[in-house]
Structures are given as C-alpha cells and as structure tokens.
C-alpha cells in the first residue's frame, strides 16, 4: 500500500497522450459511421436466415424455389398461414398452441416461484448443511438429462402418466437449479442492512422474504420467467417422450410431424408455421429485452 502511494505523484506527472491533428469531431464521426456499417452488416447476415424464413412464408409455392434468396416476395401470398394452421390428422394448430401456452405458462410459474423461495433460503438463511446442499445444487446443473430421464420414464409409465402433463410439470416443483443460482446472486447484491432493519422491527424470515426481498427481486424474477418461458416453449426431448397422442402435441412436436420430409410437401405452409412458432418468443424478447440483458448484467440494484 505504502509503495503504491509513493508512486502516485510520478503517475500524475506522466506526459499526456499526444493526439493527432485531425479535429476531434471529424474523427469521431468517421469512426461512428464505420462502426455502424461494420456492425450493421454483420447483424444483417446474422438475421438473414430468420428474415428469409419469414419472407419465404409469404411466397407462393412456385416462388419458394425460383426466387429463393429473396427476403421480400415478388407476390405476397398469405394463404400459406391458413393452409398451415389447418394442421394434420384433423387437428389444427389451435390445439397445439393451446397446449404449448398452457404448458409454458404453468411450467414457468411453477419453476420461477419455487426458485425464488429456494434462492432466498440459500442466500439469506443460515442453516446446517447449507454449503453442502448449495454445492449439490450446482452439481445438478451439470447432469445430463439422459441419466435422469430413463428411470423417470419407467416410473411415470408405471403410474399411467404417459400422455399427461404430470411428467413434464411435476419435476418443476423444486424450481430449476439455474434460476435458483441466478436469483441467489441477485439476492446477495441486496444490502443485508435492509434485512437487519426489518429484523429489528420484528419481522420473521418469511416476513423479510415477502416484504423486503421479494419486491426487490422483480427484475430477477422477470428475467427468470422469460428464460423459463422460452425454454419451455422450445422444449422438445421430454415432450417427445411423454406426449404421444397428437391432441396433446406442443407446437414443437407438431412442427416436427408437420415438416416431416416424407409426408408434407407444402413448404410454404411449413415455413409459415415455423415462422409463427417463433412469434411468441420474439414478442416476449422484444418487450422485455431490457430486463433480459439488465437481469444478467447488473446485479439487481439500481444505483
């Protein structure tokens, strides 16, 4: 410490960086233009496949193959959407969307609310075995699903729960290790002074959780809810195993059957339904983008 202080005056007297003679504002403008050009073009290439998918979903059947690279169709053909929505086997996408919305909403509520309760326990209550269970929880983050899914399947099958949503929803009652960990990090950034003040006022741990911590957790909870919703919406392996009858299909399973190369040939309809399935995710992403990024970047405390 003393050494650093002794060096400080030397640092102050160091020569200033010499700037080139070009006026400051010109250089800044040139750099800004270059920056936006470079990043903008890269962005366009990143988004091209998605834009192309959306564009193709509005192309009439023959144009899909003749005008492939175009994002904007020559002839606007929205008929692909009703064609696709009709679904297959007499079941329309109304059913699939209803199933997916039900599962994604309920699944998200379950895992996020459980995760915040558990996270509070880990972050703010001192109890015997806390460190061990915390470590165990972190380890579960790394477990391959395949090790758990086979015995789970055997048991759920014995219980007669194939073709129900129980096997998909029940494992969520304990929250998800990823969200628990995320919310713990959030809670740790909330000053303990607030807890202590509430404790002096006679609040119990439950009271502190409900009145002090929970209100501050909103950004973390929104972030977790968004992630949870879109992971659930995209979930494939587990529904594939448990939901075998088409009336229970989620959008993801339906799309897979619908786009089976050996069956369907109406690519316009396939593109339309694919593009549509991305819509809920995008709407949520765009409306909550700020929370998503801030939820990850800041630690929850607004300065």
């Amino acid at each position: 410490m003393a050494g650093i202080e002794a060096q400080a005056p030397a640092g102050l007297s160091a020569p200033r960086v010499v700037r080139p003679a070009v006026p400051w504002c010109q250089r800044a403008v040139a750099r800004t233009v270059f920056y936006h050009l470079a990043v903008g073009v890269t962005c366009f290439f990143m988004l091209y496949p998605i834009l192309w998918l959306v564009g193709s979903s509005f192309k009439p059947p023959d144009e899909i193959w003749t005008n492939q690279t175009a994002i904007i169709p020559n002839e606007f053909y929205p008929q692909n959407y009703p064609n696709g929505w009709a679904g297959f086997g007499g079941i329309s996408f109304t059913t699939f969307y209803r199933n997916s919305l039900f599962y994604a909403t309920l699944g998200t509520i379950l895992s996020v609310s459980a995760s915040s309760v558990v996270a509070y326990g880990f972050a703010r209550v001192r109890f015997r075995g806390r460190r061990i269970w915390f470590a165990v929880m972190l380890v579960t983050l790394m477990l391959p699903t395949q090790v758990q899914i086979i015995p789970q399947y055997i048991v759920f099958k014995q219980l007669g729960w194939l073709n129900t949503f129980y096997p998909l929803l029940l494992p969520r009652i304990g929250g998800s290790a990823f969200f628990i960990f995320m919310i713990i990090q959030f809670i740790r950034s909330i000053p303990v002074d607030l807890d202590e003040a509430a404790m002096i006022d006679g609040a119990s741990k439950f009271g502190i959780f409900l009145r002090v911590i929970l209100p501050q957790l909103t950004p973390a909870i929104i972030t977790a809810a968004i992630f949870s919703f879109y992971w659930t919406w995209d979930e494939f392996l587990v529904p594939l195993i448990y939901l075998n009858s088409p009336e229970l299909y989620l959008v993801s399973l339906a799309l897979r059957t619908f786009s089976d190369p050996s069956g369907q040939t109406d690519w316009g309809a396939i593109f339309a339904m694919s593009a549509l399935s991305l819509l809920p995710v995008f709407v949520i992403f765009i409306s909550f983008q700020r929370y998503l990024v801030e939820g990850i970047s800041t630690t929850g405390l607004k300065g």
Partner: protein
Amino acid sequence: MAAATLTKGKRRRKSNFGQDNLVGYLFIGPWLIAFFLFTFIPISVSLLLSFTDYNVLANSGDFIGLDNFQRMFFEDRRYWRSVNATVKYVVFSVPLRLVFALAVAMLLNTYRRGVGVYRAAFYAPSIIGGSIAVAVMWREIFGNDGLVNFTLNLLGIEGPNWLGRPETAIWTLIILAAWQFGSPMLIFLAGLKNIPKHLYESAEIDGANSLQRFLRITLPMLTPIIFFNLIMQLISGFMVFTQAFIVTQGRPLDTTLFYALYVYRRAFEQNEMGYASAMAWVMLMVIAVLTAFVFRSSSYWVHYEADEGT
C-alpha cells in the same frame, strides 16, 4: 425436512446467532424434495439399470453384470461412431461459439447509439436456438436445392449435398451452433462492463496499445467468465440432441449420431433401457471428469479479483 427436526435440538445448544435450521429447510424444502424424487433416486436407479438388460415393454430385466459396458466398448461400433461425432462437434462448436461471443461482446461494449438494437439482433438467433422451427429451417437451407446451394449456383458453383455427405453433414450443425452465440455473448458483455475503467485509463497513459490492453487487462479480467462459459458450453455441447434429431437424424453413416441421440434411440426406439442407462452413465462420468479437469486447471488460468485483496 426430517433433517431440520433432527438438527433442531443441536441448534438450541449451540445457539449460533442468526442460524435457523427449520426455516432454512422450509425454504429449500421444495428443491430438496424435487432433488430426491426427480434427480437423486432416478440417477441411482439408472446406475442399477445399467447392470441389467431391462426392457420397458416387458417391464423386466435381469442382472447381467458388466455385459452392457463390454458390449458398448468392444462390440457396438455405432457407439464409437457416436462418440466420434460428439467429440468432433464439441471440439469445433464450443471454441467457435466462445470466440464469436467474445468478439461481438467487445464490439458491443460501447455507449454508442443503437447498441441496444445490435445486441438484440445478435442475441435473436440464440433465443430461438433450440426451437424446432430453426432446425426445420436449417434443414431446408442446407438441403440439396436449398438456399445455400441456390446461392452457390448463382455464383456458378455446384454446391455439394451438404446433409447427405459424411464430410459436410456435421459442419452444418457446427455452423448452426456457432450462429447461436448469444448467451455467452451477454455474459461476456456483462463481464466487460465490470472491468474497472481506470485500468484501461492507466494502461493508456503507460502507452499500452489496444492489443496489449486486450491481452493484459481484458483477457485476465475475463477469465472467471471465460471459465464459466466454457463449462456451460462444454456440457451443453455434449448433450446436443434436437438439432441432430431434426436436421440430419444422425445420418449420413452415423456421422451426426450424437451421443444423446444414440441414447434416445436405444432407450425409446429400441426399448433397451438397461443398455441406454449404461451409456448415459458413461456420459455422466465423462462430463464429471472433464468438468473436474477444467476446475482443477482453473487455478492456473482463472484470475479472481478477490485474490488481490481490495
């Protein structure tokens, strides 16, 4: 919760300030119950199953010792092909993803106008990454008369059958993975924002150029985040399933038969749950060893600020 009642008496005696076992276990109770029911017990059962020839249709199986493992390692040639495909996928897709993620994060680590829009745009492919729609789209893009070959044709190049050739099929999936670098990018971006400005300022005063600043400040300060991202990406790389299931179905010649896909096929298409459990356990062990190795090595390359004492 049983544990809470057991330790309650002890707590009274020790009267540790602020310690509250009952309340603690009440709060983590939901996780603890779910952990035992849906993780711990299934994994233990999975270990037992791996020593049997359990068939789910007959709901019966006999103890067959190490036969599953012997079959896996010495007789099942598809097994080794799936190991091969998975390792190749992980070795190429994880570094590609991390490099893209860091490069773009550094590009977006400014306070210019419009950065928020770019950030969203770069993240967009990842938010839909695991979806079937994207996999279906990818299959079409790299199809025989798909977008890529159509474009190559316009340039006068005859494109190969990307998905049908053993040399190219896996690359379509690696590119798909590299395209989705959004999550590690956001985490890198958060890490970059946390690097104290004064470090760069003083480096500039000392005359360090941008490469030196990157190598001496950015990279060392980011190592904990690189470490975190590396572990998460390695694990998810080993478990890749959906993309191969939809885009290539493991074809051609099993060059994209990823481990998770092969486990799925054995367990749920051929009903050989004993054999599939053995495979899953080997995967678990490999991931455990690999993670332990990365953790062990971390003390040599991960730099924690706390070490310096502030």
